[in-house]
């Protein structure tokens, strides 16, 4: 079982490395989206630093959503997913490994990059560190929740709207607590409460999402 998980992780990472640019491009997407905002909104420093946490979080959300799109799509098209379903391993485990790999390859780089972008938007050092911390705790939840949506959209041709309706209510708390933490710290309320709620969401997602994703995949392949 652990064996199968290890293989899955290896597979995902090998695939990503083979495609090389895939990991980098998610990161660059994140960077570019963040950089678009000053261009659209204008270069005033106060405005920028005020909206910075929101911008970073929205960009992280989009980057993670975009890359999740392909989480199962290829395996579905080329028949690999069928084989997973027919494999003797519990599907939820395989799914969990896939999500883990996904986060390592796309979520983590975003977290590591966020301080530089925070600086560009004129955040101060404390806010930057807090920002990175919220991303570190929050992005796994994005991958986990998104995986359920990715599973559900597989078969259903235009299930996009349904997916958004299902996933968004779950994404929004992450966004609110993530970007809210910095604001709370700024106004002196302290970010502890925000951080622990964010952590709780991630843990809960880790417990439930793999099963839900597995179920979604089974439905999609029927």
């Amino acid at each position, binding site marked *: 079982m652990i064996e199968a998980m290890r293989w899955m992780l290896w597979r995902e990472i090998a695939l990503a490395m083979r495609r*090389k640019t895939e990991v*980098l491009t998610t990161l660059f997407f994140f960077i*570019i989206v963040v950089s678009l905002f000053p*261009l659209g909104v*204008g*270069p005033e*420093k106060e405005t920028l630093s005020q909206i910075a946490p929101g911008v970073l979080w929205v960009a992280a959300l989009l980057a993670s959503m975009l890359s999740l799109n392909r989480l199962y799509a290829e395996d579905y098209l080329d028949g690999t997913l069928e084989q997973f379903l027919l494999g003797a391993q519990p599907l939820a485990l395989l799914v969990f490994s896939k999500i883990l790999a996904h986060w390592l390859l796309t979520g983590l780089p975003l977290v590591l990059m966020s301080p530089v972008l925070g*600086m560009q938007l004129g955040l101060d050092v404390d806010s930057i560190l807090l920002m990175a911390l919220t991303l570190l705790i929050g992005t796994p939840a994005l991958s986990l929740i998104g995986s359920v949506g990715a599973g559900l959209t597989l078969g259903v041709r235009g299930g996009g709207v349904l997916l958004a309706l299902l996933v968004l209510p779950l994404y929004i708390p992450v966004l609110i607590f993530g970007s809210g933490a910095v604001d709370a710290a700024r106004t002196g309320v302290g970010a502890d409460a925000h951080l622990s709620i964010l952590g709780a969401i991630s843990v809960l997602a880790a417990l439930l999402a793999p099963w839900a994703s597995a179920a979604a995949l089974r439905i999609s392949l029927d």
Partner: protein
Amino acid sequence: MQIFTKAFWLQLSSPKVFYPVAGKLAPWFAIAAAILFVIGLYVGFFVAPPDYQQKDSYRIMFIHVPLAWMAMFVYIVMCGYAAIGLIWKTRLSTMMASALAPTGAMLTFLGLWTGALWGKPTWGAYWVWDARLTSFLILLFLYMGYMALENAIDDPQRASRASALLGLVGIVNIPIIYFSVKWWNTLHQGMSVSTSGISMEPSMKIAMFTLAFAVWFYTIAIALTRVRSIILERERHAAWVVDLAKAGGR
């Protein structure tokens, strides 16, 4: 003179002829670059007087400005090669474009880096959304896109043609991007700091231009070296490369 005949240049555009020529030229450029670097840095850091306002921090300029110049210039040259390669199907041109891309990206990155380091003492921030800075950042994205596309396609022939097309599109866009960013910024507000306030001592000029040439020669040397290995890789089935490998050397 042989150099003035068209045939000579046509011949030089064949990878087979160019390979040994590049091999001979590269070390000379590298040596020249190294010497100029040493001279320029010495003049810049020890001879030139400190600025009355910025004290010593202005000395980053000697590195920053040549890097920034070269970074922009390399992009144009690279796209030019790409366009030639795409239109006239000369293999060497696309190879030159591929050879220039990483250097250009690195120069851009270093330009950003040195500029940011300079920004802290002068503006009090590592980054501001000034027109020049923004368009320079976009330049980095363009380089990254170029390289990412080339890396993502495994067939080298197809990769170089695809990235060449991207370069062509990019070159159409460069002026548009440049002016849009400039206009975008000036419409809002003037920058609080202008970069042109430095009066140039002669020794400063010397340092600056020496280093500018150093960066030039460095870029040429690196590009020639890299194009040699690209030639070997892409032409590895050509008879002359096989012979070369058998002979075991240059």
